């Protein structure tokens, strides 16, 4: 038991995680490229036209995966931040910082593609309904998290302060998810849920899920890329960083 704990903490240290992350990046990047290409193929050439919305519905293939990832990445980020707060490990906070910009990007893409979908179907780019507003709050939570990190000079203090913000913001994620059930919204209910069969044609659903996997693989690849840079930036003064056989060339 104690041995396993020590091992776990060893991989939790930057010097052993740095090379491991470096080896994982190409695999996740390749998986993202393959699933992304397959997803786009299904989205445009396999999935049929929608009976009500015509071709405009194809925005679903970026909108729903981006929205899922924006929520999922927030939870993962908050878990790392919380772990850092409790265990005081260096790697946890770095992982949380590495996820935030990618999560913010997906929140932005969710709002952007949603606006472009809303205009031709609902008749408006934006309404202040509970679903759209809570997703906008999520976007601001990501920005607030990054701003707080940038504002505090002492990295350890910045880690703790931003971790508290990240954990408080978790409340917003179930609000986004259930907003369409709890309140009257312009946004429609979920097409895919755990409690009942999806209300989509099979090929449409497949395309959406494959795109979601692609975004997921992409997120892991870029988060690992970013955490490696954060490690180099923060630990440049340590022996392990100086002894790395890597240079800018």
């Amino acid at each position, binding site marked *: 038991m104690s041995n396993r704990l020590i091992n776990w903490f060893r991989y939790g240290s930057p010097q052993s995680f740095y090379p491991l992350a470096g080896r994982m990046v190409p695999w996740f990047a390749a998986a993202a490229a393959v699933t992304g290409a397959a997803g786009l193929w299904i989205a445009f050439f396999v999935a049929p036209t*929608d009976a*009500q919305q015509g071709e405009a*519905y194809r925005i679903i293939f970026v909108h729903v995966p981006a929205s899922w990832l924006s929520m999922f990445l927030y939870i993962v980020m908050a878990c790392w931040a919380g772990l850092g707060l*409790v265990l005081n490990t260096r790697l946890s906070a770095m992982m949380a910082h590495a996820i935030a910009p990618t999560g913010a990007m997906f929140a932005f893409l969710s709002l952007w593609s949603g606006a472009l979908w809303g205009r031709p*179907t609902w*008749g*408006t780019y934006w309404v202040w309904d509970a679903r759209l507003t809570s997703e906008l709050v999520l976007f601001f939570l990501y920005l607030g998290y990054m701003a707080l990190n940038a504002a505090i000079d002492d990295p350890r203090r910045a880690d703790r302060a931003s971790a508290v913000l990240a954990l408080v913001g978790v*409340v917003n994620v179930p609000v986004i998810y259930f907003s369409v059930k709890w309140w009257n919204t*312009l946004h429609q209910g979920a*097409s895919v849920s755990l409690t009942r069969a999806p209300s989509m044609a099979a090929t449409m659903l497949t395309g959406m899920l494959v795109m979601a996997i692609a975004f997921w693989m992409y997120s892991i690849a870029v988060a690992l890329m970013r955490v490696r840079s954060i490690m180099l930036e923060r630990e440049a003064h340590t022996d392990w960083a100086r002894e790395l056989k890597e240079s800018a060339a």
Partner: protein
Amino acid sequence: MKPRHKRLALIGGGLAALAVAAALVLNAFQSNLVFFFSPSQIAAGEAPRDRAFRVGGLVQAGSVKRNPEGLTVNFVVTDTAKDITVVYTGSLPDLFREGKGVVAQGKLGADGVFRATEVLAKHDENYMPPDAQHALEQAQKAQKSLRTP
């Protein structure tokens, strides 16, 4: 208690308190978070009388009447229990269809007619190709005719 456990307990307690606070705030704001009122809610007097609000429901089949000159449209919004007549001048969204969801913003007149300044389509979460929808409609029709011989 080890310092780590104490910290964990403090964080857990803080989060629980925040969650409760958020739940209370959301509950208090519930009335303000209502994006639209249904015709039944309006009939029950729940909608504001003096200011603009939104009404949501289904466009009753066969109720859409377009004014031959100009862009004025009359239609009935229903939640199958109650309904309300809406008058609107302007262009309608692509998904505005009879029998489908709609959300209209405007004011309720003294005559009980809702004068809308904006009409938005509210579509459902079903996505299927046209032939599948056609088959579904045929099946529903067949079922209906079986129930009411």
